[in-house]
């Protein structure tokens, strides 16, 4: 397996789980990022809390960059057309489907919600097919 990092992935996953847990125990809400991002713009309800969560999402990595000696890996396609189409589909799709990797994938699956389990399998399969097709056309290696 190429670049497989189970330890750091698992530690990061535990932190995400703890965040979702703390958020639920304190605010009574599930931390679905697509919903929080969407509501921060489209809804007045709990707007400040939503924006603070989003600011925290950026502050976390910022603090990590400042205090960690490790180099941050960041590599993304430089095709701005691909990025634009992708962003549009992620925005439209997560709101139509009612969740993303956090809302369905972490929160929903943790609740054994059949809806979220089906949703999570669907977006993983759709993502895998997309990557497979891009690899056939030589866009991804």
């Amino acid at each position, binding site marked *: 397996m190429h670049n*497989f990092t189970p330890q750091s992935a*698992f530690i990061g*996953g535990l*932190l*995400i789980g703890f965040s979702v847990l703390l958020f639920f125990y304190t605010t009574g*809400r599930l931390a679905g990022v697509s919903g929080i991002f969407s509501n921060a713009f489209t809804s007045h309800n709990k707007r400040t809390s939503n924006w603070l969560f989003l600011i*925290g*999402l950026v502050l976390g990595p910022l603090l990590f960059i400042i205090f960690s000696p490790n180099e941050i890996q960041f590599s993304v396609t430089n095709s701005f057309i691909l990025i634009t189409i992708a962003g549009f589909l992620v925005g439209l799709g997560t709101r*139509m489907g009612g969740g993303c990797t956090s809302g369905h994938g972490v*929160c929903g699956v943790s609740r054994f919600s059949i809806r979220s389990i089906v949703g999570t399998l669907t977006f993983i399969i759709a993502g895998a097919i997309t990557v497979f097709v891009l690899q056939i056309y030589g866009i991804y290696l």
Partner: protein
Amino acid sequence: MSEKIFSLLCGLIFGLGLVISGMTNPEKVIGFLSFTHNWDASLIFVMGGAILVFAPTFYFLKEKQKSILGIDVSLPKNTLQIDTRLIFGTSLFGVGWGLAGFCPGPAISSLAFFEPVSIIFLISMLVGIYVNKYFF
């Protein structure tokens, strides 16, 4: 007030988890979706770790009506509902996820790297959100 502080703190811990797990790197997410070539299973450990923490503890608050801050608990009730919006929406999301290697959390967290692609992605994501709101 404390609701706002906890929102900020939870966002911060979540963002820290994303960057430590490597999920803020789109190439790593693409590696997970690339099942047929150089598959990188790390993302399973991220989701697995998060579920391992949240799933068991979730049930302690499940029957309660209020959070420890006294806020009404709000949970989606339609956990058994499988409809075309779910399948079509999560499919579109999956295609977008595969095209860029970005889902909403990592895309927002990647603003910390000051890369223009994050902003382009988030602006078009917002357009998608409004298209869903007004047309679907």
